[in-house]
C-alpha cells in the first residue's frame, strides 16, 4: 500500500496500462505537452513519446470519433475530454456511434476505448463548467459508466476500464483530485466493473452514493454514529452496470435508504435507484426511499448560493434523520 492522491492514482493507472499494453494511446486537448488541464497525464509524454501521447485540436466530437475509429482499427485509446461539460459537443459520437457500433453491426466489432472526463460542481465555475451529467450517459445502453470516490478505486477502476473491450465513460470528480488514500501497489490490482462497494457497514439506514457524494456520506455516517444512528454506505463506483445486488442486499438489511446524487434531481440516478428499491424491497421498507439531489437549476456562480445547489453533509444528515423518524 502507498498513500497517494486520486490524481496520482489515475496517473499511475495510465502509466501502468501504457507499459502493460503498447496498443494503449492517450489523446485529448492539452494532454501531452501541457500534461492535462488537471495534470492527470503528467509525465506521460516524456515516458511514452509523441506517437502514444497526443495533443488534439479542440474538436470534442472528433476526439471521440477518432477514438472510435482507432479502437475499431486495433488500438486501445484513452481519450480525455477536458471536462464533462464538453462531452455535450461529442454526444453524437458518444451516443450515436460509440454506443451503437457493436450492436448495430451485429457484434462484428468491439470498441475497447475509455473516455476520461473530469466533472462535478463546487468550485464556483458557473453554469457551464459545473455540471454533473452522469445520468446522460447512464441513460444510453452500449457503454459502461464508472465514477470512483477514492484513490484506490480510481486506480483499480481506470485499469479495468482500459483493459475492458467495451466503451467506458470514466468520470473523475474535480474536487477529489487532491484527496488522499491508500492504494495497493500491485500493478495487477483491478477493481471489477459492475461491483458496488460497501464503504462502511451499518444497521439502520443505507446511504447509496457515488464519487464525491460517497465522501460526504461517509462523513455523515461518522458523525451520526456518535448520536447512535448506524448507517451503511454503499459506494456505487459503477453507474452502468448498476450493482442491484449490493444495493438491495444492504436495503434488505437496514430497511431504509437515502440516495445521494450530485446530478439534477429530475430523471436523476436517484430516481432510478429509488424505483429499483421500491420495486424489489417494498414489503420490507420501513420508510420510503429519500433522495438528496443537486437542485434543478443552472449552477449559480456565487459560493454562498452555489453550495445550496449541491448535496452537503447537512442535507444528507437531515435526509437520514427523516427516514429514521417515526412520522416520515
Amino acid at each position, binding site marked *: 500500500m502507498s498513500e497517494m492522491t486520486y490524481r496520482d492514482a489515475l496517473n499511475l493507472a495510465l502509466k501502468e496500462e501504457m507499459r502493460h499494453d503498447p496498443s494503449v*494511446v492517450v489523446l485529448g486537448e492539452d494532454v501531452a505537452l501541457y500534461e492535462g488541464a488537471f495534470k492527470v497525464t503528467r509525465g506521460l509524454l516524456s515516458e511514452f513519446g509523441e*506517437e502514444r501521447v*497526443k495533443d*488534439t*485540436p479542440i*474538436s470534442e*466530437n*472528433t476526439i*471521440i*470519433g*477518432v*477514438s*472510435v*475509429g*482507432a*479502437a*475499431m*482499427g*486495433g*488500438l486501445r*485509446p484513452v481519450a480525455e475530454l477536458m471536462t464533462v461539460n464538453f462531452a455535450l459537443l461529442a454526444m*453524437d*459520437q458518444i451516443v*450515436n*456511434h460509440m454506443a451503437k*457500433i*457493436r*450492436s*448495430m*453491426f*451485429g*457484434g*462484428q*466489432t*468491439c470498441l475497447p476505448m475509455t473516455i476520461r472526463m473530469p466533472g462535478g460542481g463546487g468550485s464556483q465555475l458557473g453554469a457551464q463548467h459545473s455540471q454533473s451529467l452522469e445520468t446522460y450517459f447512464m441513460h444510453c*445502453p*452500449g457503454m*459502461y459508466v464508472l465514477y470512483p470516490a477514492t484513490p484506490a478505486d480510481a486506480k483499480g477502476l481506470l485499469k479495468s476500464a482500459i483493459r*475492458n*473491450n*467495451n466503451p467506458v465513460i470514466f468520470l473523475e470528480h474535480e474536487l477529489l483530485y487532491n484527496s488522499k488514500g491508500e492504494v495497493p501497489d500491485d500493478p495487477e490490482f483491478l477493481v471489477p466493473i459492475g461491483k458496488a462497494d460497501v464503504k462502511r457497514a451499518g444497521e439502520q439506514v443505507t446511504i447509496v452514493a457515488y464519487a464525491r457524494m460517497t465522501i460526504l456520506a461517509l462523513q455523515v455516517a461518522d458523525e451520526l454514529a456518535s448520536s447512535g444512528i448506524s448507517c451503511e454506505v454503499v459506494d456505487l463506483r459503477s453507474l452502468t452496470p448498476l450493482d442491484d445486488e449490493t444495493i438491495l442486499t444492504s436495503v434488505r438489511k437496514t430497511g431504509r435508504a437515502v440516495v445521494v446524487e450530485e446530478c439534477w434531481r429530475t430523471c436523476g440516478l436517484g430516481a432510478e435507484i429509488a424505483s429499483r428499491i421500491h420495486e424489489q424491497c417494498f414489503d420490507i421498507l420501513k420508510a420510503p426511499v429519500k433522495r438528496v439531489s443537486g437542485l434543478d437549476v443552472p449552477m449559480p456562480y456565487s459560493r454562498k448560493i452555489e453550495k445550496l445547489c449541491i448535496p452537503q453533509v447537512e442535507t444528507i444528515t437531515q435526509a437520514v434523520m427523516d427516514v429514521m423518524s417515526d412520522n416520515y
Partner: protein
Amino acid sequence: MEAQLRKVAPDQELLKFYDQMFISREFEERCAEQYTKGHITGFLHLYSGQEAVAVGATAGLHRDDYILSAYREHAQAIVRGAEPRRVMAELFGKATGLCKGKGGSMHLFAPDLNFMGGYAIVGGQFPISVGLAFAARYRGEDRVAACFFGDGAVNQGTFHESLNWAQLWQLPVLFICENNFYGIGTEVHRSSALASIHKRTCGYDIPSEKVDGMDVIAVYRAVKYAAEKVRETGRPYFIEATTFRFRGHSMADPGKYRSAAENDMWKARDPLPNYANRLIVEGIATRAALDDIEARCRTTVDEAVTFAEESPWPEDREIWEDIYV
C-alpha cells in the same frame, strides 16, 4: 479526350467494372420492388445513377484499404465483396443478414472485407475514418482509409474537424465526396457558401481534385492516383466526384424538386449504357458478352431475393446479444 480503355486496365478488369455497375443497379432496382412489396421496410436510399463512383473508386483502392460510407452504401459493400444475398437478407431484417438483421439498409458492415460501415448520421463517418487511419499508421499497416460522403455532409462540423485533423496528424485518409448535387431536396448552392466542394480543402492545405463521377474510368484513374499519393506522402487527399441519383433521396421521396430537363440531362449520362457502348466500340466486349454479364447479375440478385425471403427471422433473445462484449 477519353483514354483508350486498354491503356487503363486489362480487359478482364474493364469487364468487371461493367459487371459491378450492373449488379449494383440491378440490386437497387430489385430493392425498390421489394420495398413496394413490403419486404424491405424503414429507410431505403438507393444508389442508382452513382454506380461509377463506387466501382471506379473501389477498383482504385487496395483490398486492405478501409472503406467507410453513409447510408446509401449497398453498392459500396457489394463491390467490395459483400455477398448480395447477405446484403439483401440484412435489408429484409433476417438473421442471415450481414449484421444479423440488426443494422438494416443504412448500417452494413463487413470487417473481413475492410468495409467499416455505413453510417446514418450525416458526417458521422469522418472522424471514424481518421481514427482508423491513425490506427493503421500506428500499427505500421499499409492502409488508406477511404471515406465516402455526400455533398450535404460537407457542412457538418466533423467534416472540418476531420480534414484539419487528418492533415495535422498526417494520416492516410482519402476523402471521396459523392456530389449528387442534392442533400435530400436542397441543392448544393442553397446549402454551401462555396458550391465548388473540392475547393473547400484549401483551408487545410489538402490537395483536391474534381472528377466526372458518371465515368467509371475517370473515377478509377483519379482514385488510383489519389490513393497512391496518400500512400506515398502519408497525407490526406480529397476527391469530388460529380454524379446524380436517378431516384428520390429515399423511397419516401418522389423527387419533385428536380426538373424533367435536369433529370433528362443526367439520364443521358447514365454510366451504364455509356460505358457499355465504349466497351463495344473499343472492341473489348460484344453486345452478347455484355448480355451474358447482365443475365448473370440478374440471376445473382434473383437468388439474393429468394435467399432473403427464405431466411429465418432473428430469434427474440438476439435483442440482448451483441451489445456488450
